[in-house]
């Protein structure tokens, strides 16, 4: 199966502390034609968000420094202008309510680990579509 087609050079920020995981995500996203930036922790992600422009944020829930949730909150409070679609990754169980996170943090979707790379690519493609269509 082919990965969904995308228009060139959308910029994705991946915040993931697990190097092995971030490597494979970078591989898949780059292969799909995205421009990928990796942040090793929440703090780094927050700094990158303020300094550069991204189309989609893919963030792990549990990270050293700021957690994924904290990054989202910081963004909503300090940079509401970004309107950045967010994809959440979590190794946690059902105790994280997708609905709550959607309404409170404004996330687009939540991927439970282990997830397939295809699910990630589909979720990213959906987000990219959303941001590009109105323009």
């Amino acid at each position, binding site marked *: 199966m082919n990965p969904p087609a995308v228009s060139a050079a959308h910029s994705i920020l991946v915040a993931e*502390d697990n190097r092995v*995981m971030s490597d*494979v995500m970078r591989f*898949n996203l780059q*292969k799909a034609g995205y421009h990928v930036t990796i942040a090793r*922790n929440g703090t780094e992600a927050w700094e990158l968000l303020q300094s550069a422009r991204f189309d989609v944020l893919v963030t792990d829930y549990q990270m050293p420094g700021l957690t994924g949730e904290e990054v989202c909150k910081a963004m909503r409070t300090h940079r509401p202008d970004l309107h950045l679609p967010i994809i959440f990754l979590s190794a946690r169980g059902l105790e994280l309510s997708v609905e709550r996170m959607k309404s409170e943090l404004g996330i687009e979707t939540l991927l439970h*680990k*282990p997830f397939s790379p295809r699910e990630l690519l589909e979720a990213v493609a959906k987000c990219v579509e959303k941001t590009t269509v109105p323009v």
Partner: protein
Amino acid sequence: MQLRSSQQPLSRRLLGHYLMFGLASIIVLSAGWWLLGQSLLRGHHEHELLHRIDEVRSLIVADQADNNGVGTQALIGLLGSEVWVAYAGVVDANGKFLAHSKPTRIGKIGDRHCLPADHETVIERQIVWKDGTRRREYWAPLGSGKASFGCLQIGVVDDLESAHWNRLTNWLPFAILAPILTLGIGGIVLQSTARTNAAIEGQLCAVSAGDSPSDFQLQTLTEPSPAARGWNRLVERALGQRTTSSLDTKLSQSLGGLLDKRFERILSSLPDGVAMTDKDGHITYANRALGVLLQQSPETAALRGRTIQELFPRDVNLHLGTGQESRPVVFEVPLGATLAEGVLRVGRSPVVGDDQSSTLQHVWTVRDITQQKLADEMRTQFVYSATHELRTPLANIKAYAETLAINELTDPEMQKSFLNTINSEATRLARFVEELLNVSQMEAGSLSLYRTEVDLERLLTEIGDKVRPQMVQKEITFDVQLPPKLPKVLVDKDKFIAALVNLLGNAAKYTPDNGRVTFKVTVALKEIQISVEDTGIGISSDELPKLCTKFFRSTDDRVRVLPGSGLGLAFTQEVARLHGGKLSVHSELNKGSEFIMTLPTA
């Protein structure tokens, strides 16, 4: 009635009654006697008087005739001494007294109002004396006709009563004293007769006045009477029974005390706080543990009279709903914002009092469930952590495998690298599962040792070889210091190796490149110390106590970026403990740590 009789002893009452009735009867008898005497006296008076006059007259006449009047004066004297006679005399024809009851008048001329010649029969004459008293005088002729020689003159006491009274006054002291004396003697006799009964009655009154059936003092009597002997027997029997019953009471009292003490001991040895409150919520009993749990004085007496709410810290509200007093309730009371500050489970059950009345008492139990709560929290944390730790390598494996599957990778190097990653993640997963298994065995207490005598030097060298590649990779100086002679030890070889590899692996993991790890063994008298010292990131003093807790991982970012389950040290510590040894840690943040496993030698 009962009260009045109990006021005076029986003997005094009897005496009173006796004297009262005795005096009354004396008075009645005296009066009767007096009246009877009076009526008899009056009836017989006239008749007897005349008869007596005739008698005396004939005696005097006879005396005159026979003895020439020698005995006349004696006769008159005799007559004059009679009660009814005021005076008596014999007057001759010339009115001269031949004889008189007052002998001084003999030979003197008397009253000439009546002369013997004048009459033949007895003449009665009324005379009023100068002092106003009245007399009757009888004139009786002595002899008849020519033989007449005079006249008998008798003055009669007209008011016989006063005459009698005058006579009686002589006897008055005796008349008064005799009945009183008789009554007195009678009283003494009566009192001595009634003494026994009085004593018995006195004791019976005391018994009836006593508060409780057993609250009286019975005394035996010393009188020799049969009544006293009978009473004494009764008293002895009653006293005997009382001794038995009081023995029962004492026995049950002391047994009750013993039981009370036993319950008290049981209650005071409980780890749970127990208290009892009355209907107003005031504590009537509290055991030691209650005071200790609520950080009050363990002196239970100090808690009495206070309320349960008072014993809790000011900011803790028990939220005891009103109107719910008759239902048992159990609630958890956190003593602070965090679990570690303490959580108490407080139970309150209603108890109906002994008197079956509706006044409600409560029994309170207070249990410290802090440890239980912490354990619950830890278990939850364990599940979270375990899930996370399982999912991370699994997610990686899945991601890489699928990436390999969906992409046509032409580069064999990349394929190999992907497969290597999958392999290492699978290994990590397997190791974690292994650790989890160990920990679960540890948890269940079934982590058993298979101890064999091992050559420690060889074993330690083997361990060193196992971890050396890690050290080499980070260019860490790995310094192994073994003493020339090592004692034989009995250890579970596999677990011992795993534990030490854990310690050395941690040292390598958390020591920056070009650091130093020292693996040193020292032999003491009865133990060996295996020390792993590094120049790593160290552990903050806050986290040091939690270090060997399962799933504990430092919040230090330098730790967080490295994979780890947080089970290794918990496992190592347990292995040391099972071998009869211990694991101790010295560490300074940013300088390094030293883990020392101490094992006893055989």
